[in-house]
């Protein structure tokens, strides 16, 4: 039963990264995030993010890929904790 659900989870999460070298990191991060999102965040416990380290490594890889492929992402370096997009109203 665990292998079946693991296979399903692997299929569902088997999306590639935009940077080929980042795919494994992305999948590892996604699994961590999806678990936290479903079990903690949606249930009201948004504090604490167990995926921070995974995300940092993954993000570094993606940023490198974006530069290499010259994908026009603006403001990526300045993004931090939602500062770039101010939320002023509901």
């Amino acid at each position: 039963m665990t292998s079946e659900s693991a296979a399903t989870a692997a299929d569902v999460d088997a999306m590639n990264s935009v940077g080929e070298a980042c795919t494994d990191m992305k999948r590892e991060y996604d699994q961590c995030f999806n678990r936290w999102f479903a079990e903690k965040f949606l249930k009201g416990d948004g504090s604490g993010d167990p995926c921070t380290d995974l995300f940092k490594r993954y993000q570094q890889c993606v940023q490198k890929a974006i530069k290499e492929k010259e994908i026009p992402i603006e403001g990526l370096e300045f993004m931090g904790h939602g500062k770039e997009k101010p939320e002023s109203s509901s």
Partner: protein
Amino acid sequence: MNPAHIRKVALCAHRPHGCGPVRSPRRSHGTTAHVMCGLSAESRPAHRVLTLRPRTERSIPGPGASLAALCGAMRVWSSEHVFGHPWDTVIKAAMRKYPNPMNPCVVGVDVLERSVDGRGRLHSHRLLSTEWGLPSLVRAILGTSRTLTYIREHSVVDPVEKKMELCSTNITLTNLVSVSERLVYTPHPEDPGKTVLTQEAVITVKGVSLGSYLESLMANTISSNAKKGWAAIEWIIENAERALS
């Protein structure tokens, strides 16, 4: 990078709180249109019958009017859709929407940034890469051989208010066309076992003599893609239920 390269069109200006500030329109010349994946393929959701209340296309009033004057052509598509699942279930599926068999053209998805704001809402900025298949004649007319397009997506999930808002726009081919979409998932006001998705798209095509033809083509594609998107969410819900637990 040039900030004007990214355009969140009038769509997001209507609701700046969800999608961020609208950048000033970019003057550009172009005779090509970006069409999202799925132009040549039509598919209907294979799963349960879902309620659909499409609205007819209309021109954007207000802020959009000046963009329309500047850019020559603009069209809005909107729709409302009901999923027979509670909001939490739909949101979990929406966050892990790709890959799915209904959207094979999405070939890469990455999270650029993610954080929880002071109000407990989760912000995610994602980059999607899509491979789109245009008929070769259309591509010859449009004058592009590019097939890989990048889309930037910003989503906000409010677990207390139970609202997920998602805005996306293409960040390549922006000198030719701009396609922006906004999706809002909320619990059904009368039935907590259901979720309502309201969806809008804005297409801006510049200086195209085939403008209205390409616009209807794109509107049809967006409509068709929206249906695939609903089916994709259903597919994820049904196939990932075991995995999600």
